């Protein structure tokens, strides 16, 4: 090339590895979130409230709660993840960091995966940590609680990953909430069915290996495909802004 050496093309060797770039995105998201802790508490509080209101609103009977408990916890977890989804890209979109993320010289879907991982650590993981406590509250047995936590551990990352697609698609809209729910909830239903089905099977003493394996398959599918879709959706949303 004929450019001046000082401003010539950047050497390929200067490129930052994609793992470093992913780590930077992950750490930045966690750091920003911990500077605004009330946003972190929101989905958690919602989760606890919904689960607490069920015994009050429907029936405090042990037999009812044992039957419905896992479903209540799963639905509450699902809604609380849904509640936090709009924040996944919205702040970054507003302050311009999303543009810079898209322009980073690394594959965008991996950076999106890092962002989604941060989202899960901030919303999904705390729900799983709280689940045993709420499980005791709705009179679930020890074994059921363990299985419930396991299904949440496999299931909530799927919720975050699928949600990332919806959040990316609705980014350009002013009030994205309703559309986001309409887009995402149908895709959440299989996860919910298998999540609660696993716990129900465990409560009856049936083997749950097959259910867990199927949920694992959901997770693998979501990890491999959702970041591609979310990255493409981000490009479209930014293109139209």
């Amino acid at each position: 090339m004929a450019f001046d050496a000082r401003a010539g093309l950047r050497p390929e060797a200067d490129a930052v590895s994609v793992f470093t770039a992913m780590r930077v995105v992950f750490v930045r998201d966690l750091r920003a979130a911990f500077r605004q802790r009330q946003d972190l508490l929101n989905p958690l509080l919602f989760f606890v409230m919904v689960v607490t209101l069920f015994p009050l609103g429907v029936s405090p009977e042990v037999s009812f709660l044992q039957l419905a408990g896992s479903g209540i916890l799963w639905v509450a977890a699902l809604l609380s993840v849904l509640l936090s989804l709009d924040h996944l890209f919205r702040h970054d979109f507003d302050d311009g960091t999303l543009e810079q993320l898209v322009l980073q010289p690394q594959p965008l879907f991996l950076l999106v995966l890092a962002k989604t991982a941060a989202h899960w650590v901030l919303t999904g993981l705390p729900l799983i940590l709280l689940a045993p406590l709420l499980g005791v509250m709705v009179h679930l047995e020890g074994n059921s609680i363990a299985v419930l936590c396991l299904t949440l551990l496999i299931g909530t990352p799927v919720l975050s990953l699928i949600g990332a697609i919806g959040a990316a698609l609705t980014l350009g809209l002013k009030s994205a909430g309703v559309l986001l729910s309409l887009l995402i909830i149908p895709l959440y239903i299989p996860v919910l069915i298998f999540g609660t089905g696993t716990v129900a099977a465990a409560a009856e003493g049936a083997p749950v290996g097959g259910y867990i394996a199927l949920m694992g398959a959901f997770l693998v599918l979501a990890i491999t495909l959702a970041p591609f879709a979310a990255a493409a959706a981000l490009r479209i949303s930014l293109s139209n802004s």
Partner: protein
Amino acid sequence: MSEPLLQAVNLQCERDDRMLFRDLSFSILPGTLTRVEGPNGSGKTTLLRILAGLNDAWSGQLLWLGKPRARRREEFLHNMLYLGHRPGIKPLLTPVENLRALMAGRKAMSDGVLLKALAGTGLAGFEDVPCRRLSAGQQRRVALARLLIADEPLWILDEVFTAIDIDGVTALEHLLVQRARDGGAVVVTTHHDLQLPSMQRICLGGADGL
């Protein structure tokens, strides 16, 4: 004459049923300053976003070093720096953290270099203050600090002079001229009356769309 970094051939963009520009052809050569001019709403920002690869709603051809850009996206992004309307600064993080996050995906850099760059834009003493407590101009200066350490040959800068004080504007003009002299290519839009030597102009808007 050296090879153009970026070449636009018959670029056309339509937005909300309105033709912003068509048959727009130009070359961005290393060592040149290019100013995109036009009234509000004439598509300056859109053109810059197209050049940066943020907007895909266009037709025509964009060549990076003579070859279609779409096929060399990562190489292009590795060599291009874009600063938009929105500065890309997270209000909750401090200037150092912001700069570190912005640079870390592009080039490994020590904190010393980052602090020096921040000091260079007049932010010494504000390194550890969350950016939301800084003024609009100071926030822009955090983003501009990148220009002091960037080694990308192509800079695309949208409204860089916004919210910057007079001294800052002079320093920034000087930086851009120096950059072009060193062989970098700079594309800017601004409403500020920029008079720089050997500046290329791209005019948008007007009666016939060009």
